[in-house]
């Protein structure tokens, strides 16, 4: 559209990026936290802090399932479904649950869950009502306080613009290798450009992968047309085709006693001798049409749909299963999905995912700051800043400094709210959004360097207060976590201390930065640009 491809892409990169950068920052921020979803849930739930990881986790599974079936047969004999959720490396407790009869107006029936310590098989203290890591997980593709489907369309739109920004960014970046080693400090928007380039290029494969695969996770909402053309009954036909289902005994009528679970487990272990079972589900227990689904961990394979075997509860016969070998198309689709969710990641890869996510936040944050800085530098000293510039500066401050503060508020609320408060989980979330709104209102009025400094100082205190409040309100603290090798909890607190230090450094830096930004007047920055080119 411009004279050259290069210039068109420069234009596209700037405007496509700027239009959605704050939403993308939220997606990347919440998405990065989602890689620690289980750890955040653990921290939010003090009742499970002291549940030790089992030494023989997989070996204990068989007995846990057998005990679970006894428990559920006694407690939920008339329930429409049962669920046994076994401990995983990052989730230390065991859950036996059965569905309560569906009440009118409910889409899904509520589960009555009993959480147990797998080492002692004792019931755990009652759980507090909290969303934990699931809040951030949902936030990064469902947003909040709005219809989930609308939110997903918005997210897909922003993600697609992100993909366009990445592609056009690669095109306009001529010295992709050389720039990896250049970082010019204290040069106004130049410094931000270097930060933008560095964070983009270092983690470029991650950015491309996570953006593309993110849209793939929602692809059947975005592009249902191939499935609708191929199947006469549309999406439903397609999903029925790819999901293993019981079509052999599902029409059976009447009640029937269930086969001993032992015989079903024997079949599972014959097929997969080292099976790491994650969940056992029973639909319509004690009925002739009942099914028992055994899900196992996909381990380190690139599969997102957990491998499973489905048995008839009445006969013990296997009625359906997932494919053992994936076809090429399925392998492509499954690997794209599993790369995004990172369920296969052990701790080293998980940390790489998180570092990639942080690089993404830096890339997006530096990009939107750079735009504002450049326009500022170009504006004459006495000229009034335009509405657009003020808006961008306000949104920058509100998003970049507001989100960490809101996150601190979420965790602080988790510890300070009374465990018996009604709708407690919603109030934690309210604390998150209320804090964010407060920062946004402040940014509406003032968004100069001083305001950034004030926000950095507040964030310093807020990040520090999370581990401190944790130490005051629970039995553990960062030192005891270290002593007892509770690494997830220790890392959680340590990260907040680290970010507190980083925000403190930012506060100190901004004290001096105020002067340098004055030194670089528009004419000087123009000189700088001339020197470069």
């Amino acid at each position, binding site marked *: *559209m411009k004279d050259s491809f290069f210039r068109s*892409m420069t234009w*596209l990169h700037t405007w496509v990026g700027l239009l959605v950068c704050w939403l993308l920052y939220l997606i990347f921020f919440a998405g990065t936290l989602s890689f620690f979803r289980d750890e955040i849930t653990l921290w939010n739930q003090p009742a499970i802090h002291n549940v030790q990881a089992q030494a023989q986790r997989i070996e204990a599974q068989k007995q846990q399932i057998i005990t679970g079936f006894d428990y559920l047969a006694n407690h939920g004999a008339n329930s429409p479904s049962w669920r046994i959720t076994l401990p995983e490396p990052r989730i230390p407790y065991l859950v036996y649950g059965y569905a309560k009869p569906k009440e009118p107006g409910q889409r899904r029936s509520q589960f009555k869950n009993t959480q147990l310590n797998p080492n002692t098989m004792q019931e755990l203290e009652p759980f507090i009502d909290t969303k934990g890591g699931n809040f951030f997980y949902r936030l990064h593709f469902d947003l909040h306080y709005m219809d989930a489907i609308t939110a997903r369309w918005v997210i897909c739109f922003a993600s*697609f613009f992100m993909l366009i920004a990445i592609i056009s960014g690669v095109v306009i970046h001529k010295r992709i290798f050389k720039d990896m080693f250049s970082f010019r400090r204290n040069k106004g928007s130049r410094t931000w450009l270097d930060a933008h380039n560095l964070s983009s290029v270092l983690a470029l494969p991650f950015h491309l992968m996570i953006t593309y695969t993110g849209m793939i996770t929602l692809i059947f909402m975005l*592009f249902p047309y*191939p499935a609708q*053309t191929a199947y006469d009954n549309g999406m439903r036909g397609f999903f029925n085709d790819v999901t293993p289902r019981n079509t052999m005994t599902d029409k059976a009528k009447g009640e029937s006693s269930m086969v001993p679970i032992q015989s079903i487990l024997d079949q599972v272990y014959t097929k997969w001798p080292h099976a790491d079972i994650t969940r056992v589900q029973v639909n319509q227990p004690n009925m002739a049409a009942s099914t028992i689904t055994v899900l196992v961990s996909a381990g380190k394979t690139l599969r997102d749909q957990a491998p499973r075997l489905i048995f008839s509860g009445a006969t013990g016969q296997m009625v359906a299963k997932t494919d053992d070998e994936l076809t090429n*198309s399925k392998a492509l689709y499954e690997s794209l999905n599993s790369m995004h969710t990172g369920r296969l990641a052990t701790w080293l890869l998980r940390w790489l995912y998180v570092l990639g996510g942080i690089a993404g936040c830096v890339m997006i944050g530096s990009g939107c700051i750079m735009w504002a800085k450049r326009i500022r530098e170009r504006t004459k000293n006495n000229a009034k800043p335009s509405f657009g510039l003020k808006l961008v500066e306000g949104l920058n401050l509100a998003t970049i400094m507001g989100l960490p503060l809101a996150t601190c508020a979420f965790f602080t609320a988790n510890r300070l709210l009374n465990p018996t408060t009604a709708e407690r989980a919603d109030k934690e979330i309210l604390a998150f959004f209320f804090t964010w709104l407060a920062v946004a209102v402040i940014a509406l009025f003032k968004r100069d360097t001083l305001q950034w400094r004030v926000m950095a100082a507040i964030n310093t205190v807020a990040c520090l207060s999370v581990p401190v409040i944790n130490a005051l309100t629970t039995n553990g603290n960062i030192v005891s976590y270290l002593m007892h090798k509770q690494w997830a909890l220790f890392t959680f607190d340590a990260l907040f201390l680290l970010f507190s230090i980083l925000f403190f450094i930012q506060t100190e830096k901004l004290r001096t930065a105020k002067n340098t930004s004055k030194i670089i007047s528009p004419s000087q920055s123009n000189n700088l640009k001339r020197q470069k080119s």
Partner: protein
Amino acid sequence: MQAPLHSASFDKINVIALIVKSVSSYRVLIFLRFVIAIIGGYAFTSASTALLCFLMPIAKQDAVLFSVSISILIYAVVFIYAFSVKSLKTVWISILLSTGIFAGLLALLKDWV
């Protein structure tokens, strides 16, 4: 009698000139380019992946999974194309025409018409 007629046609020309001018204004051109890139690109991707899925000689579910897996790639290429070609007319015509052909072919093959 002639004078009002003359002024009326003069006004008409003025209005047309105004429309032409506003349509060729920078903002409108940018808007039209985003429309064809976002909506046209979406339609192109939908039609081409649906056709591809229908034509692929493999199992139905595999054809669906393959087509959706590459759909975002197709969309991105069309989007970049819409912004890289200088003439807006070329962009509009090429995307609409190819989408129309894909959709028409699919309609013929599926006996929709």
